[in-house]
């Protein structure tokens, strides 16, 4: 059954004591997440930051059903991501770090097919696809094969795909990685507009200025643990600090903590 949360103060994403350890062949175990708990409220623009290998992508994969946690629960809009996965995934639009498009498909076909996976009707898509193509400046590329697009266009197409079913939440894993400054700012504008329309956004990125500019809430993850969660505008622990300073302080402090 699909539970829908409309109250802005109720968490739309609840992550409760999630742990995950990978067991690679011929290598020692890798602890990716340790008892991670996190709440994200409806309408938030939430930034998840951390150094490489901190556990950001594992957390995103668990949220989207690509990774199964060892312990703990995750719910999206009140729907457990494992037991009520259909309802949970219907609420989420995802742009993964590695955007892979079907090389046999045209841009337009890719969007129609993605919409179909979310159970959207042809009538709905006939209206929505041109609208999104227009919004993301891809209208003139609709009959182009996806593998012929430039890097920036692929990023825009990935976000367009995430929005095809009008989700309440979008999850963006490193959406601006590899983009030039102009394209990055173009995407920032799009994301800000979406958030103003009430869409909850969870963003992971390496660019701290991106988080500082866009996000109203942040969490810092390091070595599989959330070491800070708070309001980006207040920036918590260190008075008058910039996000970069806070980030470095938190990570350094965590590195020196006895395990």
């Amino acid at each position: 059954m699909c539970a829908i949360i409309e109250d802005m103060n109720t968490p739309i994403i609840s992550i409760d004591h999630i742990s995950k350890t990978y067991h690679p062949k011929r290598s020692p175990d890798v602890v990716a997440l340790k008892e991670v708990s996190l709440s994200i409220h409806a309408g938030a623009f939430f930034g998840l930051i951390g150094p490489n290998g901190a556990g950001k992508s594992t957390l995103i994969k668990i949220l989207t059903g690509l990774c199964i946690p060892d312990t703990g629960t995750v719910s999206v809009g009140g729907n457990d991501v494992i037991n009520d996965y259909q309802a949970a995934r219907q609420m989420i639009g995802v742009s993964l770090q590695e955007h892979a498009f079907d090389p046999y498909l045209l841009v337009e076909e890719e969007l129609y097919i993605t919409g179909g996976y979310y159970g959207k009707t042809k009538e709905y898509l006939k209206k929505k696809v041109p609208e999104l193509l227009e919004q993301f400046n891809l209208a003139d590329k609709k009959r182009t094969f996806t593998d012929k697009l430039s890097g920036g266009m692929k990023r825009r197409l990935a976000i367009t795909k995430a929005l095809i079913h009008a989700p309440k939440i979008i999850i963006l894993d490193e959406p601006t990685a590899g983009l030039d400054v102009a394209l990055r700012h173009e995407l920032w504008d799009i994301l800000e507009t979406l958030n103003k329309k009430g869409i909850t956004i969870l963003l992971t990125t390496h660019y701290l200025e991106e988080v500082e500019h866009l996000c109203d809430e942040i969490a810092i993850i390091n070595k599989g643990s959330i070491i800070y969660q708070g309001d980006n505008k207040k920036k918590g622990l260190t008075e008058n600090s910039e996000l970069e300073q806070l980030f470095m302080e938190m990570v350094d402090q965590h590195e020196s903590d006895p395990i």
Partner: protein
Amino acid sequence: MNLIRFRTLLYREIIRFLKVINQTILSPVLSSVLYLAVFGIVLGGQINHDGSYIAFIIPGIIVMEIMMAAYSNTSSSLFLSRYLHMIDHLLVTPITYTELVLAYIFGGVFRGALVGTLIEVVSILFSPFHIAHGLGVIFFMIGISIIFSGIGLVVALWSEEFEDLSIVTTYFITPFTFLGGVFYSVKLLPPALLAITRFNPFFYLIDGFRWAMIGKSEGDIGISILLTLALSAFFTMANIYLFRIGYKIKQ
């Protein structure tokens, strides 16, 4: 079962192979014409066979190409999807594992049936025939396609490299098919080999289809029907289970 989601993935599977029709459809049809020309016309006259040899091998060749078409469709599609990480973009959607497996399998069935039907039509030029059991042809064509589409999915999940896909074809599907009586009557085999052939499941699939097409059977048709049903159900359920536990597709 959400029909839109199922139809969408099925549609993608079908347009995927139709966009490379030379490789996926026309190539096996041409191979069959060559088999029929060489084995049927050139060598067939030299072979002492009870009845028309070419009429005997047509059903065998059709089954062989159906098996390969269905297997290739699902194995290459899913493996490519894993290799290029496209599968992640499918798994984040609400499509259920049952919808997903059925769509992949029916994509393979469509390709298998298309290849089989085209070869059947072309083979009329070599030896006009009357189909003995029309419903039987449909049953075995679909059943065999389901089985080999299902095997293709299992192999695509298990494989680590593209080469692994051909290992199964080379060391499993091709020998079992050739030794299952595609080109010869098993009655010609010495008793020991005949006894071994009775344990080859491919023999019953080929024999069942031959019975449906030309009305001649060398085994027990009941076994052929039951085996087709059992293997179709087994591979479908096995794939749903493997997707559900995330075998090699989820961390």
